[in-house]
């Protein structure tokens, strides 16, 4: 049986469970990104209630998904020009650019906090977050498994994981979207691909400002999120404080770990046999495949939805800085389809 968290109200039948609300406000990237990792052990051992954290980073940084490769994901030239902090998170998903024009919500909770568990929790959580966004004037809806969108365009990415005995769900809202920086920081095998990536980001990524002409005031966001979770029947969040144990864990364990090269720069994963493929997710099912078939194969770029090729390009001989459109049905198109037949789809 799990211990009763301090401050938890007595069981009142159908009453919502009470969570702790930690509003970290505007804070350094390391704290905004990773303080939840220091909270997780305390939530897991029951010394604090399940917790909703809110934060805004005070400076730009890059976040890698737990399994992402530093070397494969990030453009060295960008990092030389803009040496932003690179923080690997313990949750899933891809490489993201974060800056002060974004707001984060992070849920840290024990097994018994929800009926579903794991990724199934994402759907309930995202439903509540979408409700909060609508209350603030944005026509938001959930695109499973992890996005919040306006129409087809994403303004919120989300991911989850299990860490130190607790579950974590993290997400954020794009109040403004710096797509140029998002496109610049991702490693691409040819500069000709960057305009294509930027075009796709323009098609599939949006922000509060673009959709509504403004951004909600920070002081209105926290109450809307809290109400969203409550009205979705998940929990009631009451303001609380960090504990000494959490602060010490963040200072002595989490912050030093995330700054080590061993944690940040995990080596690239081994490659399966066959064509070399760089997969760049733009948003949800939309992304790019860059396929290099080696000395005997061709080299292509494809705009992809799920695992369906929408557009295909090849490099003209002698002009590596350009791309040529390949018409559907041509032999090159079929070659590309064959080379990518077993690639996993973007979800």
């Amino acid at each position, binding site marked *: 049986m799990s211990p009763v968290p301090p401050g938890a109200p007595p069981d009142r039948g159908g009453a919502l469970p009470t969570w702790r609300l930690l509003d970290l406000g505007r804070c350094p990237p390391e704290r905004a990104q990773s303080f939840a990792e220091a909270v997780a052990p305390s939530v897991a051992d029951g010394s604090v209630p399940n917790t909703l954290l809110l934060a805004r980073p005070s400076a730009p940084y890059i976040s890698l*998904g*737990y*399994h992402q490769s530093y070397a494969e994901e990030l453009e060295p030239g960008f990092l030389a020009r803009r040496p932003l902090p690179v923080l690997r998170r313990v*949750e*899933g998903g891809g490489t993201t650019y974060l800056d002060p024009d974004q707001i984060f919500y992070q849920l840290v909770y024990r097994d018994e906090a929800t009926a579903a568990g794991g*990724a199934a*929790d994402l759907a309930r959580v995202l439903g509540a977050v979408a409700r909060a966004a609508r209350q603030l004037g944005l026509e938001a809806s959930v695109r499973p498994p992890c996005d919040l969108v306006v129409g087809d365009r994403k303004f919120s990415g989300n991911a989850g994981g*299990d860490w130190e*005995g607790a579950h974590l769900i993290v997400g954020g809202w794009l109040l403004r979207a710096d797509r140029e920086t998002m496109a610049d920081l991702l490693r691409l095998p040819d500069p000709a691909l960057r305009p294509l990536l930027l075009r796709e980001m323009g098609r599939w990524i949006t922000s509060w400002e673009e959709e509504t002409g403004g951004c909600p005031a920070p002081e209105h966001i926290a109450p809307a999120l809290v109400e969203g979770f409550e009205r979705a029947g998940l929990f009631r969040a009451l303001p609380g404080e960090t504990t000494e144990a959490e602060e010490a864990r963040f200072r002595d364990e989490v912050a030093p770990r995330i700054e080590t090269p061993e944690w940040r720069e995990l080596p690239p994963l081994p490659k399966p046999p066959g064509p070399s493929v760089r997969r760049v997710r733009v948003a949800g099912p939309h992304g790019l495949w860059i396929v290099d078939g080696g000395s005997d194969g061709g080299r292509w770029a494809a705009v992809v939805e799920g695992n369906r090729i929408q557009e295909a390009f090849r490099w003209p001989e002698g002009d590596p800085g350009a791309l040529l459109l390949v018409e559907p049905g041509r032999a090159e198109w079929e070659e590309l389809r064959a080379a990518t037949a077993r690639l996993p789809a973007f979800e």
Partner: protein
Amino acid sequence: MDPGPVATGPACPAGPDLWMREEPDGSFTVGLTREARGRIGPVAFYGPPTVGHRYAAGEPAFSIESGKWVGHLPLPAPGTVVATNEPLRGDPRPIHDDPLGEGWLFRMRPEDPAGPGRGNAPPRPAAVP
């Protein structure tokens, strides 16, 4: 939770997410169950445990990512990892396509020589979504 009898030959459940099979040398092969596979969907990444490392009960040892959820999972019982299925790091599809065969995850020697099914720490339930 009792993960059931010690496996000899066929794969036996080791909690809701993992199966295990005793090998002739006394080690145990561990993989993801078909049920877990169906629940989590296609696996995007597999981060194997460290060969030669001794993992305590409940200590996160390996990771599996699907649908942007990363499960950091413990071994089915305390013990030492003796081998991992390295090709899965680059191509995790066999975890989904052939979870009882080519999709095995790692081999371990449990601390308790009676095997993972004899009263060691139970696997954490619902660790894989």
